[in-house]
C-alpha cells in the first residue's frame, strides 16, 4: 500500500564516506498520534512504544497541525527539532476530521512526504478509498491491534531502507566522479 519510495525518514548522522551501511536504529521512528478519545490515545501510545517508536499523542487535528507548525493562527511551538516520521490519525473527530487533517498535510510542501495512516471504527469502502486517494498510506479498522501497528512500522522501515540504499547508490556514483 506504500505510495512511493521518496519518504523523508529519519535524520541521519553525517556520513563520512558515503558507504555507511550501519542500521539506523540509534534514532527511533517518531509518530504523531491523533485521536480525540482518551482511551484510544492511551492504547495507541502503548502499541507504538512496544513497536519501539517515539510517540507524541494529541487530541485533535488542530493540535496536530500546531505541533507540525502548520496552524496558520498559532506560530510554530518551537518543536521543529522533533521531526515527525509518521502520522496516525482517527477519522471521526469533532472539529477537524482525520480526512481534513490528511488533506492539510498532503497540501503542505513541508510535510506532504510524511506518511499518514487513518484509523476508523467504520469499515466503509468509500471512506477507505477516499482516504487512499487523498494520499493516505494505509487504513486501520478499529479497534487497533498490535499486528496492525507492527505491519505499518515494518513495511515503512523496509521502504526507508530500500529508499536509502537507492540514495546511497547515487551518492557512491557521485563520489567516484
Amino acid at each position, binding site marked *: 500500500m506504500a505510495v512511493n519510495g521518496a519518504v523523508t525518514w529519519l535524520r541521519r548522522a553525517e556520513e563520512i564516506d558515503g558507504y555507511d551501511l550501519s542500521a539506523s536504529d540509534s534514532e527511533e521512528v517518531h509518530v504523531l498520534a491523533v485521536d*480525540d*478519545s*482518551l*482511551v*484510544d490515545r*492511551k*492504547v495507541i501510545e*502503548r*502499541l507504538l512504544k*512496544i513497536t519501539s517508536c517515539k510517540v507524541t499523542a494529541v487530541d485533535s487535528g488542530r493540535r496536530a497541525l500546531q505541533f507540525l507548525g502548520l496552524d496558520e493562527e498559532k506560530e510554530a511551538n518551537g518543536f521543529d527539532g522533533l521531526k515527525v516520521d509518521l502520522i496516525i490519525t482517527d477519522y*471521526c473527530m469533532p472539529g477537524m476530521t482525520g480526512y481534513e487533517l490528511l488533506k492539510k498535510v498532503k497540501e503542505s510542501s513541508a510535510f506532504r512526504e510524511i506518511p499518514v495512516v487513518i484509523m476508523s*471504527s467504520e469499515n466503509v469502502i468509500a471512506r477507505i478509498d477516499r482516504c487512499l486517494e487523498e494520499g493516505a498510506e494505509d487504513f486501520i479498522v*478499529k*479497534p*487497533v*491491534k*498490535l499486528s496492525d501497528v507492527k505491519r505499518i512500522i515494518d513495511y515503512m522501515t523496509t521502504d526507508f531502507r530500500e529508499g536509502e540504499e537507492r540514495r546511497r547508490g547515487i551518492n557512491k556514483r557521485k563520489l567516484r566522479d
Partner: protein
Amino acid sequence: MRRQLQTMRKSLFDQGYLDEQFVQLEELQDDANPNFVEEVVTLYYRDSGRIILNIEQALERKPFDFNKLDAYMHQFKGSSSSIGAKKVKAESTLFREYCRSRNGEGCMRTFQQLKKEYATLRRKLEAYFQLARQAGPVETACRPK
C-alpha cells in the same frame, strides 16, 4: 488463587462480557507495565462515565436530538470497543440503530440495558483486578511476541 483467577477470566469471555480486544490489551503488558489493562479500564470508566451523563441529560430533553445522541454513543461505543467490552458494545450498536430510526422508546430501553451491562462489567472487572493483584505477577494471556 491463580486457578480462581483463571476461572474468573475464562468466565468473563465465555459469558460474553469480554472479547478478543481485551486479550490484545493483555498482550501489551510486561514487567515494566504490569497493570496496563487495569489502567486502561480505569481510564475507560472515568472517561465514559462523562458520556453516560451527557446521554442521560440529552434523554431528558424532549424532543430527542437523535443526531446528538448518536454522536455521543459513537464516542462511547468506540471506547467500549477498545477495551473489549462486548456486551456494552452490542447495546451501543443497538442504541445507535434506534437513533437512526428515530425510535425514542427503543433508545430509552436500550440505554437502561446498557447501563446495567456497563455496571455489571465494572463490578466483575474490579473483582478480577483485585484478585489479580493479590495473586501477584501472573501470566494471563501473554503470548510470546
